[in-house]
């Protein structure tokens, strides 16, 4: 299995996992909307994989020196 196929499969599985959890929450009368949106957004990303550069040459992001 190629790297690209593995990535597409992984992203699809994560999307389906989120949709499944959203469904479980809704069926139990809880708010499943955030997870459903994440699942729906991830599905097209599986298709986009391999169509964009995987590593950028952006400069390192400096952040403030407190906490985690």
């Amino acid at each position, binding site marked *: 299995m190629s*790297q690209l196929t*593995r*990535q597409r499969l*992984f*992203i699809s599985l*994560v*999307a389906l*996992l*989120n949709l499944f*959890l959203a469904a*479980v*929450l809704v069926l*139990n*009368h*809880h*708010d499943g909307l*955030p*997870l459903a949106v*994440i699942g729906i957004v*991830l599905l097209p*990303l*599986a298709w*986009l*994989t391999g169509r*964009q*550069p*995987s*590593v*950028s040459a*952006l*400069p*390192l*992001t400096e*952040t*403030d*020196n*407190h*906490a*985690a």
Partner: protein
Amino acid sequence: MQLDAVVLFFVAGLIAGVLKVRIPFPTSLYQSLTLFLLLAIGLKGGAALAEHADARIIVQSLLVISFGAVLPLLAFPLLRHIGGLDRTNAAAIAAHYGSVSVATYAVAVAVLDASGVSYEAYFPLFVVLLEIPAIIVGLLLAKGLSAGIANRELAHETLLSPGIVVMVGGLLIGAFSGDTLTKVSPFFMELFQGVLALFLLKMGLITTEQLGALKQDGPFLAAFGVFMPLLAGTLGGLLAHGLGLSVGGITLLAVLGASASYIAVPAAMRVALPQANATLSMAASLGITFPFNVLAGIPLYLLLAQWLQGSGISG
């Protein structure tokens, strides 16, 4: 539908960031708010430690440290074999996901307080303990046993990072100040929610900056940034259940497992693995995992905790 006010400040920051609204938010104010939150969490935990210190906490602490060491070992193969990342970058990102985010923890505490769910008040001790093991494991994953963990500069960055020092300081002050803590508690305890709200407004703005970087860094990291908190949060919840913690405690350990460091670990990795691309780690941990946990993860971990404790997940 009722949403938590503190979380809505984060959403407001996100919206402002997406709309490119320039909200004046001085870096020094952001640093001051962070300092306040770390001290407040430390003080509260220290006071609780002084009241509840016993052998059971030592056993729990050892298991929590082991948990922090295992998480990078789970993340690393995913990043290597599915993400196709090189060894250095996979190890650096794995280290971020083994460590914790104090901001995510603070939001979880606010949500639990608002919901009236009690939790073990000594949890800040676990926050501090979970900062370090993942950095060491990440370094071992990147360089093997010749990692040179005894490196003085790395030890300084890891053990004496400002976040850890301030929080440990708060823990010690809280533990040893006794009744005199009441002198400062109106400032640190009662203003906590308001300060956290302001802090999250800024975090929303920062998150949108990181999302921009993720557009170029690939869909895999986006999926990883969502999957890892679900996996680690579940494991954290199961561990806490095994340790006999309360519903609130299970939720908090799930949150600690699910969260990813975005300041303490990057500082250590800059010293230990300077060749690692920090943008990848930051985009995943701050651009994806932090908002995921705040908006979707924390309520989910609370439901998991209630389900594990047998209260079911029906609303």
